[in-house]
């Protein structure tokens, strides 16, 4: 499908299905805006936050962690080996943040007031920091993307301004997410005496920002492999297996700090008391932390395309699992009542993520995001000589 002079977008059957999901979500969202949250969701006074905040916002932001960790590795540490994945990571992250903002907008009751925190400062609220950081960081990412945009549409004056701003934006683009990724954890400090002690901790912000960071390379691996398969390209397997070193070290540190924190607070024993929460915690630690550590530490696994993919999927799912445990599993007993999302809550969530996939496809097909394939090599490796990728 030709969209104007500059854009193309091929409509496959799968994409038409995704568009249908988006349309259903838009319908449900309009209904929600007119008739209120009670008409569309199963939220209650016991469960004020549900699927949209727990999954779309908390997980969306965490999964977008690939943006800031890649930015740190590529643009601050100048590890040029990873340049081929830098732009794809930025785009995914930007779209993840847009999803988070959309779901927040859907979830707030008095949505016409969404701009109030810019003017009425509840600076003693963790949410205040989260709101400011996410708003500014999304803007920063859009500006960073603007640099790519103007490679296609040349507007020299704007390009010049953006280039001048870029060093500042890059630093801001790492500092802000570091702050609010941790603050998303700090949000749950208020849940003292209610959030199960295996998750509640005064250093929960550390666990959130650290996991968002180590999730980054894993997310880039999963997304890069999927995109490569979808577009019939060769995945950047050697970049991915090299990235596992970062994730591996960070996972080990995470595990050590986690255990030390539990021992320090004297609740390590709770992990083995057989309660539902404790078993979920053990699954989180064994399947999604220790198992990936073993897989990443085994050269034959991390150097194979499927091995690194599966280990990375475990890490990604593990972070989602952790966030779900904090929001739902760990709070369930204290909140009382019960919550399961309605079909409309699911419809809106599915619609938003379908929109993300469509936007991603549109952007990579119309803008220079993926590394150029090196056609002189038979294997099709994009990290080749002659393109200046080698560090």
């Amino acid at each position, binding site marked *: 499908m030709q969209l104007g002079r500059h854009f193309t977008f091929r409509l496959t059957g799968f994409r038409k299905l995704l568009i249908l999901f988006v349309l259903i979500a838009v319908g449900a969202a309009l209904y929600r*805006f007119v008739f*209120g*949250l*009670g008409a569309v969701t199963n*939220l209650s*006074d*016991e469960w*004020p936050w549900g699927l949209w905040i727990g999954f779309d916002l908390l997980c969306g932001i965490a999964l977008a962690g690939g943006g800031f960790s890649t930015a*740190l590795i590529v643009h*601050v*540490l*100048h590890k040029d080996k990873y340049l*081929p994945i830098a732009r794809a990571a930025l785009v995914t992250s930007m779209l993840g943040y847009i999803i988070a903002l959309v779901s927040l907008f859907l979830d*707030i*009751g*008095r*949505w*016409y*007031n*969404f701009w*109030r925190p810019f003017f*009425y400062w*509840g600076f*003693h*609220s*963790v*949410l*205040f920091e989260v709101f400011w950081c996410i708003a500014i960081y999304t803007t920063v990412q859009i500006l960073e993307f603007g640099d790519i945009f103007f490679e296609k549409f040349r507007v020299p004056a704007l390009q010049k301004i953006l280039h001048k701003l870029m*060093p500042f934006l*890059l*630093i*801001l683009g790492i*500092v802000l997410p*570091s*702050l609010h990724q941790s603050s998303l954890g700090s*949000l749950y*400090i*208020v849940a*003292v*005496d*209610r959030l199960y002690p295996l998750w509640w901790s*005064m250093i929960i*912000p550390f666990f959130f920002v650290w996991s968002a960071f180590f999730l980054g390379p894993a997310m880039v691996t999963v997304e890069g492999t999927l995109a490569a398969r979808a*577009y019939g*390209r060769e995945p950047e397997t050697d970049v991915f297996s090299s990235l596992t070193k970062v994730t591996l070290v960070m996972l080990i540190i995470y595990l050590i700090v986690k255990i030390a924190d539990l021992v320090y607070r004297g*609740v390590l024993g*709770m992990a083995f008391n057989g309660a539902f929460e404790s078993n979920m915690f053990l699954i989180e630690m064994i399947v999604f932390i220790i198992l990936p550590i073993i897989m990443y530490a085994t050269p034959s696994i991390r150097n194979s395309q499927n091995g690194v993919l599966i280990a990375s999927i475990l890490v990604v799912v593990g972070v989602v699992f952790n966030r779900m445990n904090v929001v739902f599993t760990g709070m369930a007993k*204290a909140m009382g009542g019960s919550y399961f999302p309605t079909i409309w809550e699911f419809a809106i969530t599915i619609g938003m993520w379908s929109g993300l996939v469509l936007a991603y*496809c549109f952007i990579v*097909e*119309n*803008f*220079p*995001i*993926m*590394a*150029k394939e090196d056609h002189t090599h038979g294997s099709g490796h994009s990290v080749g000589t002659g*393109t*200046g*990728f080698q560090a």
Partner: protein
Amino acid sequence: MSKGVLIDVTRCIGCRSCQVSCKSWNDLPAKMSEFSNNWDSPGKLSADTWTNVNYYLIEEGDQLKWRFVKKQCMHCNEPACESACFTHSFVKTKEGAVIYKPTDANKDYCVGCRYCMVACPFGVPGFQWDKAFPYVLKCRFCYDRMQEGLEPACVSSCPTQTLTYGDRDELLALAWSKINNDPRYVKHVYGEKEYGGTSWLYISDVPFDKIGFRTEAFGQPVTQRSIPSLTWDVLKWTPAIFFGWGAVLTIMRAYTKRRAEVHNESELYEPVDNK
């Protein structure tokens, strides 16, 4: 002076006058009672029900006794809802009431994010789920009456002197003198220290954990620190992290840049062809 109310659970007869007067003074809609296996009606707090009397049947040996416990916002000394609100829509007044600015001060800042509801350790604030533009509502300590020198509607309607309105410090002294002069009472004023203390205080002759109060969580006594102070312990590092981490990154970037090759980024990437 910061005001408070002392609730003496031993005196309550469960007549629900407080519920009725609360609804009528605050003009709150009535709700049809539903059949259930207890005597509570409606049973829990919500945006339309700011106070509610819970009924507890307590077994002590072969003795059975009813206890009736009025619940409402505790009006924390340092409210979690106030600190959680990113537009500062809840505020603790100097008189001790925790009020909601959109309805009580005509300042419509509330975004409806419901973080206050997540933050409240007593699960008090209620949300108008059926409204297109809902408010978060809860007991406001009859702030309007308080300013006119009147006691809260519920206190004025209580026929058994279960509720005593006054300065919090004096009520606390009264509570302890009652406890010390009558061996029936549990030696605990609920609200004196819980979560940094609350304006509303309870004394009882049955253990508090049997009448719907959390005295311990996960085997530990509930925290005596206020929730805002816990949050602030973390939040106060924000500016230092912002500038410190920013400086570290800037230095690292400058340091590694000297050794890095210069790339023309526009030559590294291309749009993918979806064939």
